[in-house]
């Protein structure tokens, strides 16, 4: 296949692992396995970041996604004590149609690129992704969104507490 010609092996292997792990995430019956597979996916994506000269991003990705978010997922899974029996299996027809939809989307997007082709500019700068550069940009140009994330976090925090907190008064569940 011409698509893979001249491609370095590490990239191919890395991409292969990424896609495989991602597929395992969506197909695994056991939610715990899904979470673990997702963490693996994130690791491989971090490796891609390093290939792309985004070294700091790679570390942050590991810390935030693999370290924080996925742990949160695991925690909730264990809290709710979910295992493979908890999810009813869907009919084949549904699976096929879902696959067709996703496949069509992939085909349409890739086909559009095949049709158009892309002008590629190679980067010569290597220090873009270092913390020095990122910090400068974050504290100058992106200062406003950086501060506004405060609003996001405080509302997410308050909201999460509000919803997940167990009320003392036992109320009737209404429907």
């Amino acid at each position, binding site marked *: 296949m011409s*698509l893979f010609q*001249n491609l*370095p092996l*590490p990239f191919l292997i890395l991409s292969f692992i*990424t*896609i495989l792990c*991602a597929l395992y*995430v*969506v197909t695994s019956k056991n939610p715990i396995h899904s*979470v673990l597979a*997702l963490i693996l*996916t994130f690791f491989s*994506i971090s490796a*891609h970041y390093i*290939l*792309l*000269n*985004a070294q700091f*991003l790679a570390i*942050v*990705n590991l810390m*935030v*996604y693999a370290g924080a*978010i996925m742990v*949160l*997922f695991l925690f*909730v899974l264990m*809290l*709710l004590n979910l295992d493979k029996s908890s*999810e*009813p299996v869907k009919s084949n027809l*549904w699976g096929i149609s*879902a696959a067709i*939809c*996703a496949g069509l*989307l*992939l085909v349409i*997007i890739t086909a559009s*690129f095949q049709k158009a082709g*892309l002008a*590629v*500019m*190679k*980067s*010569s700068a290597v220090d*873009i*992704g270092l913390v020095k550069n*990122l910090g400068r*940009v974050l504290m100058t140009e*992106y200062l406003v969104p950086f501060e506004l*994330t405060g609003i*996001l*976090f405080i509302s*997410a*925090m308050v*909201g*999460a507490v509000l*919803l*997940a907190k*167990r009320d003392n008064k036992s109320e009737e569940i209404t429907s």
Partner: protein
Amino acid sequence: MLGIFQNIEISHYIYLSCVLFCIGLFGVLFRRNAIILLMCIELMLNSVNLLMAAFTEYMGDQNANGQMFVFFIMVVAAAEAAVGLAILVMVYRNTKKTDVSFLDGLKD
């Protein structure tokens, strides 16, 4: 970086990201467990992150706009995950289920 990686074109990263995105999308359509759905959405977000980082690298954007965007996507994903899981816990408490197709009380 290493010389051999010079051969990788931007289109490869686009394809890779699109494949990851579509896998995530397939998961969203296919699975019924709300937590897995949420994980699939995280996967979709990550594929976008990868694409952003790739564009930054290939355009040589000195301000690293794409990588900045990735930071904010991560921030939002974390907040979203927290709120989403809180909603899930709440629903689970009331229904003992995390199956999305089970909740269909609201309809025409």
